[in-house]
């Protein structure tokens, strides 16, 4: 392998794993001094078109506490038909099916290129996927219409054998029975009353009658199909029916008086959806898809009262402890999320409204269950329509890009312990020898449940080196980690993907350079950012920033080259050079800054940040800026105010937004209509280029970013201006004396100032 960069890339492509450190410090003490923890970003279901699943089951280590899967790192005695577990060193007999094994006849899982392998399990009944729509009817007429159309369209995208169900809510909650002919039936629930799962099931008639009526006629045995089939029906059977039903959906008929919000029982609706699935299809793949057009205004989980004159809580209110419904609502949704997670179902939230909809309170529903969270202005926008459509896209095999009910099991070699994970998962509370007492993220376990995931879902997994300084690891020793992901494939099969990786141990004293070179600053930035965001959920914003700053300074102190007390002498090696810049942008990002963001927006941004893969996460931290001009092909430029030039077109991708910004001159040309003149066709092409590129991004991204087309001086230009490094502001405009670039009206420090400061602190011995 040539460079670490290539190594890293190769590993990522093969295993979907990126470590912050690719050579591991060999003792606990050294590891803690490295500042950035040993951790990795794992994309368990990374798409591997080149990796067909094998049709048999994995061979497991026989030690009950280990149960590691046979992998290429294991030592094999072909004659004795034995293999040694590389995690616990247990010697295991191969199963009889492996009788023909030899050096030349190895099973796939022993080949080094199959460090990641997928098994398909044939056993067990396959249960169909379940999609339960939970639809808010307190919408404007055209919004509701658009939503109805989207839902009807989605029916054609669902797997034909999937089960669908429909719950609508407004002031009341209606569970629609889909099986009946003729008259349409629904069960109605009061929107203000929380019910236990048992009650819900009783009321829906899902519990079996206690006494099967001996006195009346005997119950015919075949009369016992799923009682729940009344509410959940295979798409192919009832799609016509359901299409009609959706078509007849009316806005919530209860009158809403002037000055009031419609009464919206989101909390109860979700509770009923959860209860319904809990009772009927526990532990099978199911999506509860909540479509809501406003905040819950009554019942458990209510976020704001129905008086319009009292606005929904803002960050300001929350800081002042003035959000009276927040705590209770959050508790309600957390309880629901935990139940849902326990059942292996996931909850998607599609919230489309101009105002907030209570995502702050509801976020855990999506966060803990691996569901999607989509925020838009209206259901009648392409943002929602296409995002929703994209959920049902298929991969190269024609399978849906979604998986359900997964458990992620992590095994480590003895020198390592697991500190925690950050991502859309919940702990399964499996203690074991390899679980660390120190927690980072969701810790205290070696297994997590991931109810819904897709090929891009990425988890940050944090480790702790536990090897003691005085027990050195022999030269050339390698640490190993195995990730075992059981999941339900969208084709309803159970599958197991096993990734086993190993890295070299290195002694910090002697091999610091080695370790330095193997630092993956991108991964490290994202992993640190996840930690920061994770902390921000529970801590005050400034504390988190301070923590991040301190970590950064310590890292610079550790790995920078400088003379004490001489900031100008400070240098960072290539493998660290971008890291401070990432941190700078992270500090300014909406993940940590709540200023100018509503609580809902913050929740939304953080939700996505905690599940996207490394590339996307980096875009989120530091948006990408491309510049288009007549001077040459499009080029990436610094995310800096100096890049905003009059004769350029800029394309900024912040993951959530795509901004096309026409420089002042370009905008004037545009207004003058040059692009329509044949002699200026090249201008037309120039204008078109960023649009095409943006389209490309739009095609691939989930959720659909907000697409903004603006120009110099346009109000929407703020999206761009708020992201770029404010190297020119009203404060230093003249000092810089440049005529290019655009000054940003802000008091924020610029990257230059930030760096200067950092250098100063890094070299000072006081710190």
């Amino acid at each position, binding site marked *: 392998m040539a460079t670490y960069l290539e190594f890293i890339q190769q590993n990522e492509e093969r295993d979907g794993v990126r470590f912050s450190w690719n050579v591991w410090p060999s003792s606990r003490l050294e590891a803690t001094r490295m500042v950035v923890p040993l951790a990795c970003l794992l994309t368990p279901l990374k798409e591997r078109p080149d990796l067909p699943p094998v049709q048999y089951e994995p061979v497991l280590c026989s030690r009950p506490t280990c149960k590691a899967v046979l992998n290429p790192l294991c030592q094999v005695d072909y004659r004795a038909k034995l293999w040694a577990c590389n995690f616990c060193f247990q010697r295991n007999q191969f199963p009889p099916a492996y009788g023909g094994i030899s050096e030349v006849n190895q099973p796939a899982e022993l080949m080094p290129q199959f460090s990641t392998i997928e098994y398909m399990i044939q056993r067990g009944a396959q249960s169909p996927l379940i999609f339960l729509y939970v639809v808010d009817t307190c919408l404007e007429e055209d919004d509701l219409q658009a939503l109805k159309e989207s839902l009807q369209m989605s029916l054609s995208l669902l797997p034909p054998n999937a089960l669908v169900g429909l719950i609508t809510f407004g002031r009341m909650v209606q569970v629609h029975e889909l099986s009946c002919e003729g*008259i349409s039936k629904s*069960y109605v629930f009061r929107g203000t009353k929380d019910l236990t799962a048992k009650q819900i099931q009783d009321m829906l008639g899902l519990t079996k009658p206690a006494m099967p009526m001996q006195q009346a006629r005997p119950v015919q045995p075949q009369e016992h199909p799923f009682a729940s089939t009344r509410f959940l029906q295979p798409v192919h059977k009832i799609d016509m029916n359901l299409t009609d039903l959706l078509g*007849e959906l009316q806005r919530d008929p209860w009158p809403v008086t002037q000055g009031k919000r419609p009464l919206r029982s989101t909390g109860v609706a979700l509770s009923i959806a959860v209860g319904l699935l809990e009772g009927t299809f526990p532990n099978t793949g199911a999506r509860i898809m909540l479509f809501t057009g406003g905040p819950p205004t009554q019942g458990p989980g209510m976020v704001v009262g129905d008086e319009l004159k009292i606005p929904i809580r803002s960050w300001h209110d929350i800081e002042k402890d003035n959000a009276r419904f927040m705590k209770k609502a959050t508790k309600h949704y957390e309880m629901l999320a935990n139940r849902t997670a326990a059942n292996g179902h996931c909850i998607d939230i599609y919230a489309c409204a101009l105002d907030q909809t209570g995502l702050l309170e509801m976020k855990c529903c999506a966060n803990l269950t691996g569901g999607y969270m989509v925020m838009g202005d209206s259901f009648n926008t392409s943002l929602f329509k296409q995002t929703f459509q994209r959920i049902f896209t298929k991969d190269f095999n024609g399978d849906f890009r979604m998986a359900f009910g997964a458990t992620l099991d992590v095994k480590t070699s003895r020198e390592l312990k697991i500190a925690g994970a950050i991502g859309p998962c919940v702990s399964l509370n499996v203690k074991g020898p390899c679980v660390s007492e120190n927690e980072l993220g969701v810790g205290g376990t070696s297994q997590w449940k991931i109810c819904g995931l897709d090929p891009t879902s990425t988890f940050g997994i944090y480790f702790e080196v536990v090897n003691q300084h005085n027990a050195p690891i022999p030269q050339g020793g390698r640490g190993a980690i195995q990730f075992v992901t059981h999941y339900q494939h969208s084709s309803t099969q159970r599958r197991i993907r096993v990734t086993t990786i190993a890295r070299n141990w290195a002694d910090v004293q002697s091999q610091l350079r080695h370790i330095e070179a193997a630092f993956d600053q991108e991964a490290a930035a994202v992993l640190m950012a996840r930690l920061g965001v994770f902390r921000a959920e529970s801590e005050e914003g400034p504390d988190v920033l301070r923590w991040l700053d301190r970590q950064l300074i310590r890292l610079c102190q550790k790995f920078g080259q400088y003379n004490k007390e001489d900031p100008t002498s400070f240098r960072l090696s290539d493998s660290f050079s971008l890291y401070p810049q990432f941190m700078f942008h992270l500090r300014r990002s909406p993940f940590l800054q709540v200023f100018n963001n509503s609580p809902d927006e913050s929740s939304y941004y953080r939700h996505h940040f905690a599940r996207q893969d490394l590339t996307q996460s980096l875009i989120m931290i530091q948006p990408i800026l491309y510049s288009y001009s007549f001077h040459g092909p499009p080029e990436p430029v610094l995310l800096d105010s100096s890049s905003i030039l009059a004769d350029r077109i800029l394309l900024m991708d912040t993951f959530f937004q795509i901004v096309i910004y026409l420089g002042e001159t370009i905008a004037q040309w545009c207004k003058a209509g040059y692009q329509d003149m044949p002699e200026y066709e090249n201008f037309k092409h120039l204008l078109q280029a960023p649009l095409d590129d943006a389209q490309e991004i739009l095609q691939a991204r989930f959720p659909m970013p907000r697409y903004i087309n603006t120009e110099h001086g346009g109000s929407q230009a703020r999206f761009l201006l708020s992201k770029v490094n404010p190297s020119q502001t009203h404060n230093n405009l003249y000092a810089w004396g440049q005529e290019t670039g655009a000054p940003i009206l802000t008091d924020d420090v610029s990257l230059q100032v930030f760096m200067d400061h950092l250098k100063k602190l890094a070299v000072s011995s006081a710190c």
Partner: protein
Amino acid sequence: MNVNQSVPPVPSFGQPQPVYPGYHQSSYGGQSGSTAPTIPYGAYNGPVPGYQQTLPQGMFLFLLSDPPASASQSLPVQCEASADFKGLPGSQPFGSPLAPVGNQPAVLQPYGPPPTSAQVTAQLSGMQISGAVAPAPPSSGLGYGPPTSLASASGSFPNSGLYGSYPQGQAPPLSQAQGHPGIQTSQRSAPSQASGFTPPASGGPRLPSMTGPLLPGQSFGGPSVSQPNHVSSPPPQALPPGTQMTGPLGPLPPMHSLQQPGYQPQQNGSFGPARGPQPNYGSPYPAAPTFGSQSGPQPLPPKRLDPDAIPSPIQVIEDDRNNRGTEPFVTGVRGQVPPLVTTNFLVKDQGNASPRYIRCTSYNIPCTSDMAKQAQVPLAAVIKPLASLPPEEASPYVVDHGESGPLRCNRCKAYMCPFMQFIEGGRRFQCCFCSCINDVPPQYFQHLDHTGKRVDAYDRPELSLGSYEFLATVDYCKNNKFPSPPAFIFMIDVSYNAIRTGLVRLLCEELKSLLDFLPREGGAEESAIRVGFVTYNKVLHFYNVKSSLAQPQMMVVSDVADMFVPLLDGFLVNVNESRAVITSLLDQIPEMFADTRETETVFVPVIQAGMEALKAAECAGKLFLFHTSLPIAEAPGKLKNRDDRKLINTDKEKTLFQPQTGAYQTLAKECVAQGCCVDVFLFPNQYVDVATLSVVPQLTGGSVYKYACFQVWCEEQVGGLSLEGRHVALVIPFALTVHVASGIRAVDFFGAFYMSNTTDVELAGLDGDKTVTVEFKHDDRLNEESGALLQCALLYTSCAGQRRLRIHNLALNCCTQLADLYRNCETDTLINYMAKFAYRGVLNSPVKAVRDTLITQCAQILACYRKNCASPSSAGQLILPECMKLLPVYLNCVLKSDVLQPGAEITTDDRAYVRQLVTSMDVAETNVFFYPRLLPLTKSPIESTTEPPAVRASEERLSNGDMYLLENGLNLFLWVGASVQQGVVQSLFSVSSFSQITSGLSVLPVLDNPLSKKVRGLIDSLRAQRSRYMKLIVVKQEDKLEMLFKHFLVEDKSLSGGASYVDFLCHMHKEIRQLLS
């Protein structure tokens, strides 16, 4: 014992006229003499004249009777009938007098009017009774007879009356003698007597017989039949008739003679009480001796009181019908006693509310509470504010007083009525209730004429009529908003039971057509009422039937613990707009639940849901619940089976009538607040706890209908449902207020409603069948001049959503003499009140105590009469006021009713059901309910279209060669005698012999022959008269089912221990004697 009927005298008059002119003349003559008195009478009745004119005969009668009466009171004169207890003997004598009466219907009629006052004195059995009788005759004989008899009746004595009728005829005495001995002791005598009767039946002949009182039997029979008054003989006292009789008799004769002369005058003056009577009395007695002699011979036969000798309800009804059925009843005069409820008559409103709206126990109220206490006659009014009227009578006019709303007294808030006095040239008016002087608003001003009446009095209903309506202003509306039209919600049980019996399918079919018959306002083309549908078992299903939908939508609410309405728009719809969807729904409901296996049902949540729906729609309305079983599903109002027959006759028996939980009352309260009236139709096949389920309908002004063992194959019931469906409520009222003049106040209310305070009755709904009974007590002394006024104001929303006030006014007389009170009572209303009082009593007291209270009260009433009005006679004589001569028989029926004395086959549910029903029954309903009608089918010619005359409800009256229909408003039996002609059987049942008739049959085959048509027509017409559908049951003589039938023969001893009429009369007599001594 003897029954002396004052009536008889009257009859005698009557007879003379129609039947035996000759005779009459004579008697008449005498009477004519008496006519003098009549004149005063006429004056008195000033207003009435029309009436009298119309009926010449009546006139006569009046005259006759009146003279005596006239003095004291308007029409009625009391006739006292003295029955000798010794009864039998007494009866005989009477019989003789009576006989004539009985024979001559015409006579009776005339009598009718006056009769009210008739007293029956019965002398105690063995004792003096006979004597009394005996004397009487003589007295009459003295010449007293003709005219006086009436007089005597009124005042002093029955005897006199009797005698009067047969002056010389006094033969009766003989009969008396016989009676005495017989008394109750031996029943055997009865038959013999009976036989005797039959012969006497022919009135004509009797007269003669009377003259010659010789034949006791005959005379006896005659009288009993004809005359209302009865005398019961004291049972045990079979004293040596002869001796006793003699004793009493002796005195009488002289008395009579004396009396007669003096008598008339007396009557004029102080009728009733002491003076007149006493002297008279004395005289009659002496007379007795003569009698005694007669009696002497006869003693043997009479062993028990002859049923024919005692007052017969049938006879009274017939008499009243004949006497008063032909002339309209004009309400202009204060304190008139209206015709009986069983009589068909027209009413002319001239300032007082029609008796169809209000009936009182007495039309003459004692001036002081002391008197009232003494008399023990309850003062109560049975008000049926929305009674339906025959087509000939106009419904109340609507008066619009414009924006200021109806004119009312500022102080007591009484509404403008004909009794308000305009003064100061019409600028002010004085409230007739509280005497407050109010200004007349300028727009209402009108000059007065020379009599102080407003010139426009006859142009304004509120100044000239007893009943009228005001258009209410917005101030009279809830939340100061005009109401929207009411809604009907149909709620159908779709549990396994309901499906299995076919009820649901049937209902859905019926509903389709019923929807065309929703009540509508006046000439409106379509009903403004909106309808909604709910089905339920353990959960509720609401239906969205919005007209824009292609298919109805069903919404299930399973949260029965916390009921709510799941939809707003589309639940309550206009029938015509949504007809297609509704039809589709009703078609589908039976299909949807065809396979249901759900047996549990809920109840409270269903009503709650309906109420919430009305609340959400902001309107009042009515719920129709069709329910089949005990609600045992887990929900509020869950009930358990507590049907425990062991509790009967224990102190805990009352719990059977009380609701199981308070949830029902609470709910009812909420319903009332919302104006939600609830009708419950029960189709149980086992215990459903009617006592609890009926709480809500009861308090919300709804009804309970119960169809036991419903089976759809019984097609007849289909008709039943639809009938009742069409009877749906007319209006959704809000409150009913009763204003009364100062001096009395309303203290107690009975009926289907809720009261949040003690004066205003809150009703969620009221229909034309519902009555409210109000009891009054004295506050202060009443004034004889001004009388007592009663105003009943009903604030309601009409079925088109119009807010209105319906006002009924009634003026009553006040009296200082107890006799006046007794002369103006109405027994039917009294019974109605007493039954309601007793039926409410069982909720709180042991049934036995309630029964005793009733008996005691009745005894007190009669004893008071006897003591104060009926002049001294021997204690052995039972004397009943003419107006109340049926009180014992009716009271006995009440006492024997299922609620107060359950038979073995009566279920707890039935008792609770009946108890609840009676609470809101009107007088006509209680009358037939307690004393069923028994109609012979083949007696009358087949061509006659009228109902055959009823016979008394006793097994003795059944002939095994005949068939009878029996109905009491709830049940309908067709009893077939064992030896009915084969032809009859064939033409009615289409089978060849009696033995082939299916017992328990409930539908008669439709055959094309006159008899079949007639019987079926009769059945239909009976059903049409009742608000509830009566299921027909065919009962064969000697069949098992006959037990059921016999239960309704109320004059007989009942299996459950109820006394026979005769026994009860004796018992009553004993009670009275005890009180008197």
